[in-house]
Structure formats: C-alpha cells, structure tokens
C-alpha cells in the first residue's frame, strides 16, 4: 500500500449548553456532549480524511488503524498536494474572568430571563433570548511529532424583539459572545435596545434603491470587510481559481491609507491559540496602504500559492481544517464621526448587520443592515428599514473616501464549506462614495 507522507489527528471533546427563553417561557435549558476526531493523511497525491466519534488518541494501535484506513482513501485522489513548513507554537489562552462552569444552570437561566424581560416594552409582541456556551477540549498530534492541547471556552447570547402595530411586524436583535469568560451579567441594556429598535422600526420607511453615498457603522463595516475582502483573500479559494484576488499581490485595490488585517491572536471571539494544523498564529495584513499584501493560508495553500501567512486553518469539531478568517478588521483612519456625516452630505447611514454573502469568483458581495437613516445636508433624518448593499470586490475598496477613528469589533459566526466557526469583524465608521442600495421604496 502507498505510504502516508504526513498525517495528523485532531480530537475535540466538548459540551454545549443552550438555554432558550421564548416570551418568558423557558423552552429548553441543558447541556449536550460530543467527542469527535478527524484523521487526515496526505497520500502520494492528495488527502484522505476520516471522521469518527470518540477516538482514543493515546492508543497507538487505534491511531495506526485509522491512519491506514485514511491512507487507503487518499489513494483515490489525483490532485498533487504539497504542504509547506510553517512555524509552530501555542499561545497562552487568555484567562477567564469568570468560568461559566462555576455558574449553575438555574442562575444562567435567571440572568438570561432578565435580558429577555428587558426587551419587553410597549408594542413588543414577542421576545426571545438564547444563551450558547461551548467548552471544547482540543488535542492535536501529527506525524512530525508535534502535539498540543488546549481548552476553548465560549459564552454569549442573542436577544430578539418583535414589535407589531396594525399588521406591520418589525424586529430588533442584539448579541454578545466572548471567549474570555461567563457573559450574561449586567446585559439587560442589550435586551432593552433590541426592544427599542423593533418599536422604532414600526415607523421607519422603506429605503429607496439606487447608487448613493453611504456611511457604514463599525458593525456593518466589519461585515463589509469580511465579505468584500476577507473571503476572497482565503488561500484555498485563490488556489482553486475561485477568487478575483488571484494574481493581484502588490496591486492597489483600495484607497490610500487602507489597512485590512486578520489576526487570530487577538483575544476577540475569533481567537485561536494555534491553528487546526498546529501552526503558530499571527497578525496578517491582507491590505497595507490600499495594496494587496498577503493571502490567508494553511500549509497546503501556502505551498501552492505563496504570498501570504499560514496559521489560518480552522475547523468545526468533526470537520477537516480549511482556510478561515478569525478576527478581521479595518484599522482606524483619522476622520471623526461628525466629519464623516458632514462629508456624506446626502446619502444613507446604515447600522447593524443581518449578515452577508459573497461570490468570490465573480467578485460580487451582498450584506444587510438592521436599519438606517437618511442623511440630508449632513444631518440624520428619517429612519429606514430593510436595507441591503451590494458591491464588487475590485472596485468597492476604492470607493472608501473616509476612514473613521472609532473601530469596534463585533462577534459573529461565519459559514463556509458547511462548517460554522466563531469570528469577529470590525472597522471604524466608513464613508462609501458609490454604494448600491437594494431598497424597494419609491
């Protein structure tokens, strides 16, 4: 049988605690368990990958049997894959302010109920809050003798309010997730905010579609960064010819002064102490002063594509590692929020995010705001709802005409290849010259 050139095994044993409160009723609250292992073998050509429940990583006999099976799988592949050497190293995991395991389920439920209750203001007809806690124990070893283990703790919640008047229904939602400890205390203000946004949207107008100037708040500008640049800079998409950023290293693709970074080492929601291939993580500047500088890589895409930084392999438990973002952001410029609004003159201010999506090969992306305001003569006027934007990767970064000085990071989850991983996005307020706004108002 053909030989394995390389193998690694990554086991994640974990607990997920979920609490769901809907209109004051505790629908469910409890903990579930998983224990998944992924075995990867690089055969003479490509990858063979096995996924199993409950693997005893310390048993040499079990490991050998799995590696042999994965090697057999790898034998059917034809694509010639090589992996680059990359620096190793495990960062310390930030210590927890308060360990969620020290808080019992009753108290978590009570605190979540407080947040949900705060959203229930007049005209709000439904409130819902969900708590999500994940405690993962990760163990990794590879055929070169590298081994590491660490624990990842995530705790956070989302709260949704729906307001209704005369058959019109609108929603407001807030969320907050961290990797630094228990995250349900003193958060009622976010519940209240969800309620207030839902109620004020009852009076909002439909946005008018067209091309206009747009101010993005830090949360939406973070999603813009993630969709417009982040995905297209992922080395696997570049390798496959599926990104418009292929072959553009050194090219000016954005305005002067623009710096876009992905940094898995920051203690934000996308933090990882080491990547899913055992490679050390570090700050990667994708764009420096408007020029495309680095792709995000794993060992395979670094070998195939070059021009970038490894340490960006991530995996959901029970799934093979792929190139992913972690904490992605635009660095601050020097404009104040007031300067940005006044420079916008006439346009639209967009706030919050309902997510986005990109077709990196075509270079087109879409993302949605929670709500917005019309800007007239540099002043904020009427509230508008259901506004999405679309843009084209290769031109949109040239359309940034002002970069604010007030960057904020926001936690979220990103899906790719059927895997969902925690990330954070951020930016300062941005002013875009020509944004395509997809409203249906007249």
């Amino acid at each position, binding site marked *: 049988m053909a030989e394995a050139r390389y193998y690694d095994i990554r086991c994640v044993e974990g607990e997920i605690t979920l609490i769901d409160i809907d209109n004051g009723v505790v629908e469910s609250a409890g*903990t579930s368990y998983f224990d998944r292992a992924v075995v990867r073998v690089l055969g003479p050509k490509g990858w063979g990958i096995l996924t199993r429940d409950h693997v005893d990583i310390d048993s040499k006999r079990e490991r050998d049997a799995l590696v042999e099976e994965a090697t057999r799988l790898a034998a059917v592949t034809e694509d010639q894959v090589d992996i680059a050497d990359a620096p190793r190293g495990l960062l310390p995991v930030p210590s927890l302010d308060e360990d969620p395991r020290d808080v019992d389920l009753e108290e978590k439920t009570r605190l979540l109920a407080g947040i949900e209750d705060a959203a229930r203001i007049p005209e709000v007809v439904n409130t819902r809050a969900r708590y999500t806690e994940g405690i993962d124990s990760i163990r990794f070893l590879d055929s070169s003798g590298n081994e590491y283990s660490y624990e990842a703790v995530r705790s956070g919640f989302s709260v949704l309010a729906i307001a209704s008047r005369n058959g019109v229904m609108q929603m407001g939602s807030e969320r907050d997730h961290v990797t630094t400890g228990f995250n349900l205390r003193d958060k009622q203000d976010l519940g209240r905010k969800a309620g207030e946004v839902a109620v004020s949207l009852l009076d909002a107008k439909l946005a008018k579609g067209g091309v206009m100037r747009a101010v993005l708040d830090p949360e939406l500008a973070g999603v813009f960064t993630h969709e417009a640049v982040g995905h297209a800079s992922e080395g696997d998409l570049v390798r496959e010819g599926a990104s418009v950023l292929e072959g553009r290293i050194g090219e000016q693709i954005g305005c002067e002064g623009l710096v876009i970074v992905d940094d898995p080492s920051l203690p934000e929601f996308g933090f990882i102490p080491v990547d899913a291939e055992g490679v050390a993580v570090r700050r990667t500047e994708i764009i420096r002063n408007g020029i495309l500088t680095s792709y995000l890589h794993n060992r395979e895409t670094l070998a195939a594509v070059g021009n970038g930084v490894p340490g960006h392999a991530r995996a959901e438990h029970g799934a093979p590692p792929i190139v992913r973002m972690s904490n992605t952001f635009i660095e601050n410029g020097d404009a104040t929020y007031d300067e940005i609004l006044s420079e916008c003159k006439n346009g639209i201010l967009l706030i919050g995010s309902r997510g986005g999506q990109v077709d990196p090969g075509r270079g087109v992306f*879409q993302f949605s705001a929670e709500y917005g305001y019309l800007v007239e003569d540099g002043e904020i006027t009427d509230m508008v709802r259901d506004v999405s934007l679309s843009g084209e990767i290769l031109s949109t970064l040239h359309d940034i005409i002002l970069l604010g000085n007030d960057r904020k990071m926001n936690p979220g989850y990103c899906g790719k290849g059927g895997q969902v991983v925690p990330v954070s996005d951020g930016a300062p307020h941005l002013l875009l010259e020509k944004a395509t706004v997809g409203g249906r108002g007249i």
Partner: protein
Amino acid sequence: MNGDDLIERVLRVGERQADEVEVFCTRGQSVSAGIKKGILGIAEESETWNMAIRVVKDGQIGFSSTGDPDRWKECLNAALASGRIATPQEWGGFPKPADIAATASSADPDLVVGIEEAAGMVVDLLSGAAEHPVEVIGGGADLARVNLEIANTGGVFYDMNRTAVAVSLEAIREQSTGYEFDASPFLDEIDARSVGEAAASLAARSCGGSDIETGRYDIILSPIAAASILGQVLLPAISGRNVKAGRSFLADKLGEQVFDEHLSIYDDPFAPGPGSTTWDAEGVPTRRLVFVQQGVLQQFAYDLKTGYRYGEESTGSAVRSGSGEPGIGVHNLFIDGPRIKDAGEERVVWIHDVVGAHTANPFSGDFSVEISNPFWMEGGRPVKPIRTAMFAGNVFEMLREIGGLGKDDRRVGRLTLPSILLNKQQIIGK
C-alpha cells in the same frame, strides 16, 4: 453495550426518575469525493453515532444528547437536570405505537456508500463540465446512509433507513461563475454528467453581461432562487410555534386568501424525497398537510410540545437536524398550481440564484438580494446575460399575485417547486 439494548436500558433507567422517556438514535456513514484544481483532490469518509434523550416529568421537558455510548448515564442525568429548569406546560404524553399503514421511501437499497462510487461520479461531473470552455473550481460527490431509531416509554419503537446522493460543481470563466447541484435519496435520479454540464454552461453563457437600469421588470425566479427566498420567509411563517408566539405574518389569517389562487403549498411525507417518512421525529404518524389551497391559508404545522401547550394537535411535523432537539419543520414541501401553457413572447429577467437570501426579514417578508446568473429571456429562452443587479421585494406581497408557474419542477433540499413568474418587480441596477 450498543444499539437496541442501550436504548432499552436508557428507557428503563430513565423511567425511574421521570414520567416519560424518549430516545432518538442516529447511526450514519458517508463518503465524499471533492474536486480540487479540476480533479479529485480529497477523499473523506465519516461515521457518526448520536443519541438524544428527552425526559418529561410534571410537564417539564428535559433534553440532552451525546456522541459517546459509554456516556449515556451522564447524558440521561443532563436531560433530567435540564427538565427541572424548563417551564412546566400542558403535556399529554409521547405517542403510543400506531398501526402505520402508509409507506414512504427515502432509502435506496442498492446504494453503495463507497469512495470508488463517489469518485466515479466525480468523473461524470467533470466530463459534463468539459463540454464548455470553463475552469472547474469546486464541487464533488457525497454518498450517505443513515439509520434512525426512535423509542419511548409508551411503547413506540420505530426505525428507518435513509440514503442520500448529492453532487455539485462550480465553474468559472473569466469573472463569471456557475454553480449547479442535485441531491436525492435515489442513485438513479442523479445524473452527475448533466449537473457538471449545466454548471459549466451557466458560467460560460453568463460572460460579457450588460448592465440593467433600475426599474420595475417582469421576472422569473428559477426554482433555486425561489427556494432560497421562500425557504427563509415562508417556512418560518407556517410553523405553529411562530404563529402562537406572534412571530408569523400569517398568524391571524387562517381561512383567508393570503396568496394568489394559482398557488397551493403542501407537505407530502409519503412522496419519494429526502424527507419521506411515515413517522415524525417524535414518533407521531405523519400525514399529508395542505397549508395553502388555491391561495387560501388552511392550517399550520405543529409538533407535540407546541400542540399540547396551545390546545392544537400535532400535525406530525417534528423534524431534527443533527443532534439537536426536535422542532417544527416540513418533510417534502411542494409549491404547486396550474402551469403556464406557453412561455409568452414578453421580455423578462430570468434569475438563476440569489446571493444573501439569509438576510431576508422572516417576520415582515422584506428582502433585498444580489442576483446570480441573470439573463434577458425572450420567448422562453435566455438570450443575453445581465452583468449584475439587486432584487428587492416582499415575499408576502409578491405571492399575492403571481404571473404564473413554470413546468420545470425541481427538488431543492426539502422543497419541490417550479419557476415562478412575477410581474413588475423592483430591480436595482448599478
């Protein structure tokens, strides 16, 4: 200990501490052959096992799940602890064993879940794609078989097999991409070569599109585009839980003409499809459910929990995804109605897919999305690609008056639907 013995053990031990116990076990095996650089680059095989336990005591429902049979006790205890926190509710018990006369098949007994079989389908995908001048940038073939078992302390013990065959291919030519896919429980329903050809054809034909002016246009949503938008908005609106919680636009409209009279929407768990089943994820016998009959709203979907709480009957609509708790869903949802006899000579905008459907507002129905592979269509044929544009609208308003349904029914996930002609929709050009 494994399999049926383990299930029996959990029921007996759990019963000592709760009024009722339910165990749902899944055991699955899958293979996947992935395309990289236009050839087979990755071969995967996966085995999964999961056990989900629900306990009920004094109307409090607890839940937990585990992927490790040796940890069943911990899982049972977690379910009991979970139940002690849940708000008590009206509860009439898990279902008793029923005489299920109906049949439903979502398994292909002849399907071999082997990597060589998947690799063979990749060859077919690539040979189809080779008919057009494109680069293949992704895709692959997946084969899976899963065994599902449900048992409760009321005496229910059902099991079934499901199979799944899925192929997809993504191609690019210059800056024009094309993606196509197909999935079925049955191997002979999948033509990998045609899927590869269709994806490549889309990428090749979409090159050199022209701009479109902002304005109102008659449009055709392909079954894929329609499924993306309707899946995000329509499915939550017919869930009884959302209805009773005040989260559904359709909540107070039973018996009303909510959609065009040419639209009917029903769930048929007995039709062959990926969700076919004679019992739902709580062991309740399934039935055909007509949600919308010729535009008139007939009923909503319920599971046991929502049904008992609000004095409604379970409609056998419980589904599970992954190892999670059961919730309200659909088995095989059909969007149906009389079809347009001939494609008119009118010029319309045809939309293959959309980008960002998940950002639609499920409560109000408002959405604005980027469109993928749009074409000008004349006399029923795509004649000229459109470069890029957005499409904004409201699902509930848009379905109130449709231009008609095409003859091209297609299964997209658990939805089966034709293309939908809509008049005077808002397109935003760039």
